[in-house]
């Protein structure tokens, strides 16, 4: 089992299902709204939204569906705000995590850029997966 510390800061989150293409769009939109709400700049916001798009689509394509939990978090009182999104599925899990992050590695004729790229697009990234149990990925972008 591979497990970085997937430890959400959010105590409450907006949970959205990911079972169709349209749900990916909705998750993207919700993330964009939260990022705007806490004043994340255009470039960081676009990166966060794109990471959400990649991870949500991975849930859909490689795990047959799952959910995203979105929240605004502020760990040190109200001084710092961030958008936190946790993608969780009960799919097959990622067998070889290291390879999955590699540029060009795809089991579904994709470009194989989504997972590794997402990690570069956000401030915090944590992944936990176990074969047969599913995958959970947490991302955060700070304002």
């Amino acid at each position, binding site marked *: 089992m591979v497990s970085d510390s997937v430890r959400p800061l959010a105590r409450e989150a907006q949970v959205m299902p990911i079972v169709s293409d349209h749900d990916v769009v909705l998750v993207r939109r919700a993330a964009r709204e939260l990022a705007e709400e806490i004043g994340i700049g255009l470039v960081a916001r676009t990166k966060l939204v*794109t990471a959400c798009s990649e991870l949500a689509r991975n849930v859909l394509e490689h795990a047959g569906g799952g959910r995203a939990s979105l929240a605004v978090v502020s760990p040190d009182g109200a001084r710092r705000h961030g958008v936190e999104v946790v993608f969780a599925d009960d799919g097959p899990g990622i067998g070889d995590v290291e390879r999955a992050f590699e540029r060009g590695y795809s089991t579904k004729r*994709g470009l194989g850029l989504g997972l590794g790229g*997402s990690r570069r*697009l956000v401030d915090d990234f944590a992944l936990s997966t176990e074969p047969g149990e599913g995958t959970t990925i947490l991302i955060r972008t700070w304002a």
Partner: protein
Amino acid sequence: MPNKKKLSARLHDRRDAVLAAWLKDLDGQLDRDTRGFRDDASTILDLLITQCGHAEERWDEAADSLTELARARVAAGFATDETITLVSALRSAALREVAALDDIELLRHLSKLLDVFLRYLVDAYVEARDLVIARQQEDLLELSTPAVKLWDGIVAVPLVGTLDSRRAVSVMESLLNKISETQSTIAIIDITGVPTVDTQVAQHILRTVAAARLTGARCILCGIRPSIAHTMVELGIELSQVETHANLAAAFAAALRSRGLDVRTSDA
């Protein structure tokens, strides 16, 4: 089951009366001419009578016929509330005829049958409508992704909105058709209106570029906003094979130039 026989016999005997009552009721309630509906109405009624006589519950045949009828209603422009009026009018007409027999069991049986029957009819109707809506959406899809000819040998497609797989395929088709129809050698893809470019969108663009190349046309990409450019670089999307320009104007100017044309302010 004697009940069923009795029921179907009664409706069979009173068929014309039920039909007349039904249509009369409809004439009063619907704003449209029901004459065109007469044939359908008798078909529906006969289905119901047959269904009453069936020893066991077999609905496939009735369901198929109802689906066909519902399609015809939808094609004729029947609205949802009109369909509901239509089925509830049948319900009262049939129940009225059987109520005259003063047999509560029979009435209950018919009412149960009608419930299932009407549900099939409404389901079939809704399904037919969904089909029409889906088709309209597809039409809209095509409309919203028109490739246009800008100049002899130059076509462009402005992409606007979320580029999901379905839309991406339709964009690609529209562009390739336009290329061959106009015998163009340059195709401009403008993504100014695309809010998110992820690996899926990138893959669709790259596929379109490759397909265009096979038909002998070169693609020029434009309208990549700075924030999206940053994101694409971070994601690792490789577009170095594709000529890119800041905006449509620059792309068009480059396209004209490469066809040996020059844009100048006239001397006059």
